[in-house]
């Protein structure tokens, strides 16, 4: 477990470094492709919710997506 926590801490540190050192790589006037409907990291909120419900119910792993595991459904997962 401690190795995994250390791995998580390193990944987190890397993420923080990336974010705090964030530079303006892409100026506002070059973001037309980033605004494409296919580009958001997550699709439609309701579709995402429906599939998440299925995966959380049928698989033992949940969490890390802004929602706690084990809440909101009658299963033990």
């Amino acid at each position, binding site marked *: 477990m401690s190795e995994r926590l250390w791995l998580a801490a390193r990944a987190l540190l890397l993420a923080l470094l990336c974010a705090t050192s964030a530079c303006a790589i892409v100026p506002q006037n070059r973001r037309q492709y980033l605004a494409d409907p296919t580009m958001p990291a997550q699709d*439609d909120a309701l579709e995402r919710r429906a599939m998440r419900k299925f995966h959380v119910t049928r698989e033992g792993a949940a969490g890390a997506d802004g929602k706690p595991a084990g809440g909101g459904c009658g299963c033990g997962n």
Partner: protein
Amino acid sequence: MANPPAEAVAAAISALSRARGAAAVAAFGLLSTVAHADPTSDASILGRSNDGPRIDDFRLRLTSYYQDGRGYQSQAGPVAGPGSERAIIVQPMLLVGIRQSPRIRHEVVVPVDIVSAASANALDVISHASAVNEAVGIEVTSRFELSDDDQLMTHVGWHEEEPFGSGSFALGYTRSLADDNATLGISGQATYDRFDFLQPNGDRYGRRNRTAVNGNLSFSQLLSPTTVFDASYGLTYQEGLLQTSYNSVPLSDAAARTPEVFPHSRTRSALSARVAQHVPETHSTLRAAYRYYWDSFSLSAHTLELELHQYLAPRLIARGSYRYYTQTGVDFFGTSVPSGIGTFSPRTSDSDLAAFHANELGLRLQWLARGHSALDVSYFHYERDNGLYANIFSFGYGESF
């Protein structure tokens, strides 16, 4: 002395009359607004004004799950198992986005689950395969833009089904950095579940509860004019009655079953990262995601997701997706236990907590209609190597204003 029922009737008529009057005034006001719309006004040129609350997003989704398989936790089969895991679930959902002001927006989601046939979600449908169970909830998420770079989020949720009720509250903060090239987010959520303590034989021993607290860190970064990267870490701590109390485990030395038992608490962690790459030359977008999960039940899991979005026409998008998932299973899983096992010794036969690999293929067609509306239809096939499979159909409609 006036007759009380007569007074009540008179009051009701008076109230109805006032309501009609108010409706007439409102209708007149609306007609006046339409009649006097100035085509050269700011609102006409820039869009709707932000004078007050208005609905800016409306979505409907209907998802159907057809699932079948066999698991040792199910009683819909021989005593020594495995039993049927067949289930049909229909889930209509509604989302309404409400723009309260230029800096405040609310999103209301109402999900409904209609579960029929054998289900892990309710005892009655395990013992009576044709029974039906319903669940309903409501979730309200509000976002407050504190400044051009800072955003606060609150979330309140409530869920109710036959043996179960749940409430949740979340708070989050997001900061944009470097001219919106990067975003850093932190959020926390608490969930309280209360449910009947149902036994595998149908007996009820009052109510029990469990709580979950969850913290998340996330960040995203624009890597190029066509590339976005994001990553997150989540930590969840659960405490209380964590098992599904009506699940059971076959006894290895008797034709009987014993209730499933979980440890009293569980700590879960997950790291995830994803990248999206647009290819202007082919009008395509590729997305890839990876997630690593581990918890205090000795369960670890890897998830890999790949998606290809392809424009078939200027307003028609096809999506193909593949998802691979593998988990090790919890350390107290078994298809049976001896009858001498301790009352509180952890055990489960739940096939969802066994070691398995799962593959999922998905196809979706989305039509972006004129006037900010969209229609989509999708199909997913999910299959585990321990026998469970599911076919999922989903239909969505959305309208932005």
